[in-house]
């Protein structure tokens, strides 16, 4: 089954990265005029588009609700991977990811005394191309889109995945690595406070190794924050230029 080494004895991964390296990352905000906020992110070959609508008046009266409601729709395009899948609408797996993303963002949004406290935010996530790390790409793109939409947030939510193979922790797994039985930990981090809002582990990872994998993923999140931050700054400068 092993047609390749996850990490070769020379210390290179299948795509030529070394274990603690991220894939190439590029992101943009404001890709949709229609939406209140939008972002597009490419992490290696994983491509993700997010559109945020809101905050707006809630459609139903949700008086008991404290804080804004986030509706997340997570979709994987049928053309996103080599094998074309058609029925992907009511996939439980997709719904689970959607709810994970919802829970990740809920505690981050600021709702002071009355600001946005009873509002509703719609998040539409579309994975256009899938090559591993869809969850963290989606979260990073959502962060950008939320900022673009002007939703008040306590901090960036930066996400990154890491895995473990033999004796090394690997950062930002691609599809080949994810499917080759590497335990994958996705971490969502608030870089300012260092708090973790999301932790999701696929397949089993020995407890002894957990710490180092978590650390590496957190470092990845930090680097991700710098990227997101510079994207936002650049976009804002652009915006400032056009406004003036």
């Amino acid at each position, binding site marked *: 089954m092993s047609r390749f080494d996850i990490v070769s004895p*020379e210390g290179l991964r299948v*795509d030529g*990265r070394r274990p603690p390296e991220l894939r190439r990352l590029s992101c943009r905000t404001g890709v949709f005029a229609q939406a209140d906020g939008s972002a597009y992110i490419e992490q290696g070959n994983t491509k993700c588009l997010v559109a945020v609508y809101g905050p707006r008046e809630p459609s139903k009266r949700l008086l008991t609700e404290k804080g804004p409601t986030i509706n997340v729709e997570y979709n994987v395009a049928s053309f996103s991977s*080599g094998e074309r899948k058609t029925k992907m609408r009511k996939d439980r797996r997709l719904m689970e990811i959607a709810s994970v993303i919802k829970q990740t963002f809920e505690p981050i949004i600021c709702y002071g005394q009355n600001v946005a406290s009873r509002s509703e935010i719609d998040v539409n996530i579309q994975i256009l191309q899938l*090559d591993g790390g869809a969850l963290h790409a989606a979260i990073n793109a959502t962060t950008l889109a939320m900022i673009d939409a002007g939703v008040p947030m306590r901090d960036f939510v930066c996400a990154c995945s890491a895995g473990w193979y033999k004796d090394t922790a690997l950062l930002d797994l691609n599809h080949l690595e994810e499917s080759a039985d590497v335990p994958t930990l996705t971490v969502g981090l608030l870089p300012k406070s260092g708090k973790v809002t999301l932790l999701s582990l696929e397949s089993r*990872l*020995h407890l002894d190794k957990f710490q180092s994998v978590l650390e590496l993923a957190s470092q990845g999140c930090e680097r991700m924050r710098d990227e997101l931050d510079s994207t936002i700054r650049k976009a804002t400068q652009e915006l400032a230029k056009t406004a003036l």
Partner: protein
Amino acid sequence: MLKSRAFVRKTKRGNVIKVVKEHYLRDDIYCGIPGCPRCASQTTTITQTPPRTTKLVPTPHYVLPDTNVLYHQIDVMEHAAFVNVIILQTVLEELRHRSKPVYDRVRALIAEPARSFYVFSNEHSRETYIERQKDESPNDRNDRAIRTATRWYNEHLGGARKVVLITDDGDNRRKALGEGLPAFHVRQYVESLADYPELIDMVANVAEEDIDAESRYTYPEHLSKSQILAGLKSGAFHQGTLNISQHNYLEGSIFAKVNGEEMTVMILGREHLNRGVQGDIVAVQMLPKSEWKAAVSVVIDEEDVEKEDEEAKPTTAPDEVAAAESAMEVDSAPVEELKPTGRIVGIIKRNWRAYCGTIDKTSVREGQAGGMQPVFFWAMDRRIPKIRIRTRQAATLCGQRVVVAIDGWPKNARYPQGHYVRTLGAVGDAATETEVLLLEHDVPFAPFSPLVLSFLPVEGEKWEVDDEKHLHGREDFRGLDICSIDPPGCTDIDDALHARKLPNGNYEVGVHIADVSNFVKPENAMDLEAQRRGTTVYLVDKRIDMLPSLLGTNLCSLRSNVDRLAFSCIWEVTPDAKVKDVRYTKSVIRSKASLTYDAAQARLDDPNLDDPVTLGIKALNMLAKKLRAQRIERGALTLASPEIRFKMENDQQDPVDVEMKELKETNALVEEFMLLANIYVAKKIQSVFPESSMLRRHPRPPPSNFETLTKAVGELGLTLDPSTSKTLADSLDRCVLPEEPYINKLIRIMTTRCMMQAVYFCSGTVPEQEFWHYGLASEIYTHFTSPIRRYADLVVHRLLAAAIGYDKGYSSELTDKVKATEMCNVLNYRHRMAQQASRSSVELFTNRYFKGKVVEEEAYVIRVMKNGFSVLIPRYGIEGYVYASPTSSPSASPFTYDADTNRLVAPSATIQLFMKVTVAVTVEEAGQAAAQRSKLVVRLVKPFVEGLSGTPEEAAKKDGKAGVGSARLRAGADEREGKRAKRK
């Protein structure tokens, strides 16, 4: 740390899926050459051995082989002469694709610092990566990548040092020379290494044409890969692993699915075998029914046939061989016995390995010392055809055990071409022969590496149970009267037992197994090494351990009067031996006594002893008898095999006497409780890990296996009913002839041979009704009781520890079905090999025992064939084949074969199954005479048959072949669970 460019690569795979991969090119791939000014920041380099200069290349240089060189000439590359070698990533990837074993060998070379092999990841270096051009084949692209890397190196090093491309591909070499790169043939380069003259022998002849011009033998052409694939798809061809008969080197078979039905397809004769070698995966075309043959009841030993072939005039040789071969093609069997027969049309995958054997002396020409000459090589494995090799050291290789690898088998060559790899030692030397048999059975026997040993407890011999550290989660059984019962001289004590009466009248019985999993943690180097070894291998004169001896014979071994960690299985049983309750726990024990079977028996037999240990043994014995009765009631089989033990004199290579192994009541006692533990543990792990438990099953033998035996037994006026294990067991009990007490044992031995092999399997891969263990008549079974010497038991220990919640931090390897299945396959293979190795070892020592002796002994006929019959000699537990005719031509036989009654009839005597005969046994030594394998020779003494039998004295004098046959040893026939469970 810069990723410079990213782009995509498209590959197709299976049902055309476009796979898009990223491929990062880097600036930090260094050349690996020490002291390189441009790669100052590199951390790993070739070790500091100065590069070599040769006549051919006067500048100091490094060697860069291409894929084909590594693939075909791996034996040369493994030679110590090759140091300072640069291996390209392109080459490694291609190699891995072509052959995993060769790839692993190259990886082993790279890992060895002394050899200075360096891997240059050219595919990920920005400066050496090339893209495939339009209309360029992947092969050409890779060749170009190799040349590009070579050029880069030579430019990089700036002329002071060079990198030399070694390739046997003419086209590639021409192009390289055209680009001004130094490039050579392997042979060219090796010849320039004046310090290593032997190396040239090891160079494989890959594409040499017309090597065997004189024999002018032509095989049918093999079909191309695409033709084979199309044929397999359409159902015209069938795929299977070629298995050559042990008795007849021209009879092969594959097991394949033909028209939806699984069957054995015979492949008979040189022409139809068409260069297939034992173990190859071949494509077979069925022959029309009119050409089907019956299974041949003859034994043909290639060596004997060929010997005559060479003794006769060489020019007429093919006719002689044809005559001998026709012996097997005489087609007199009735139509219904015809077996499906086919012919090989192509080879899907070769499965060649390096073979141990000897050089055929008769093929060596004198007076050619120093010159290159072709000689023949006989492999130890009689299923391998003789191999033609070219060597300059023919004279010195005679009488030595050598290793030879096959390079290829051109269609115009009668025999495969090979090359010499290395010399093991003199034929007949005990150490050499033992090494040969370990190599032949693929038993890893190198000493444990320092890395493996580094995982031993740091305290070493002084390690002891620390209450604070070890008692957590364990029960303290140190107060119980536990004892162990083992064969004399046993140092790796896996198991210990206790029994005591409970206040309610029931008994508490405990089986305590060495807690090896406490010392061997999953996935560390020691664990991986143990997994690779799979099992401890027991030879007559030594033991190849699975675990380092500090663990096996000391820290894990449940020795008496020291605290040891154990994994315990505790039952509450009624006095009728019904199990009321069971629990499993990790524990600490202190064995009160390490007894031998004899000592335990003595305690049992002495009614006056009433110390707690003896009382325990007595209770155990009482319960064991009842458990056994229950098991027999369920239909468990009692089988037999002639096992022997050698009496060795101290410090001597040769055995002085042979005796049959005896079984005592105490053997049965231990066996019974081990079975009980195994069964209960199997139930437990299966209930918690239904998908990934490691279990052991013993499939029901198909009724056809028994056909011959039931027929033969019928002739004695006895019956055998193999419809279920219960009826079989009962009918075996009734198979008694008052005048021949040995017959019952004989029938049991032969029944054993009709059985299937018991195998390990992963519970998620087999439907539950097939978990059945036929021999033990148990619904479920596993191995739990010998973790020191079997890896499967260690896995089961880990599963059980997780199942009882002791080990909460277990990782995915316990639940991974795919990995578990792979592991089962490896363990089954190792297990089989280990068994065969110990059998061969017994054979080796039997030969030593018979050396220079002629022994006359009683024997029983156990198989009758057209040109002879097999006998079993109970006294030594050996099996031999007696040829019916003094020469290999069938007409000279005084016997005629009667197929209906399966008898050999001669005017003065008739040979039939189960007949008692007297035979003379002697040994024909390897290296002496012309025989390449040392073998037992058995000849008939009584009944006297004119022209065949002789007195032993005559027999000893008569050199050659009159009425003799080779004998093989079948000591310890197929597996018998229970007894094996206690074999030490």
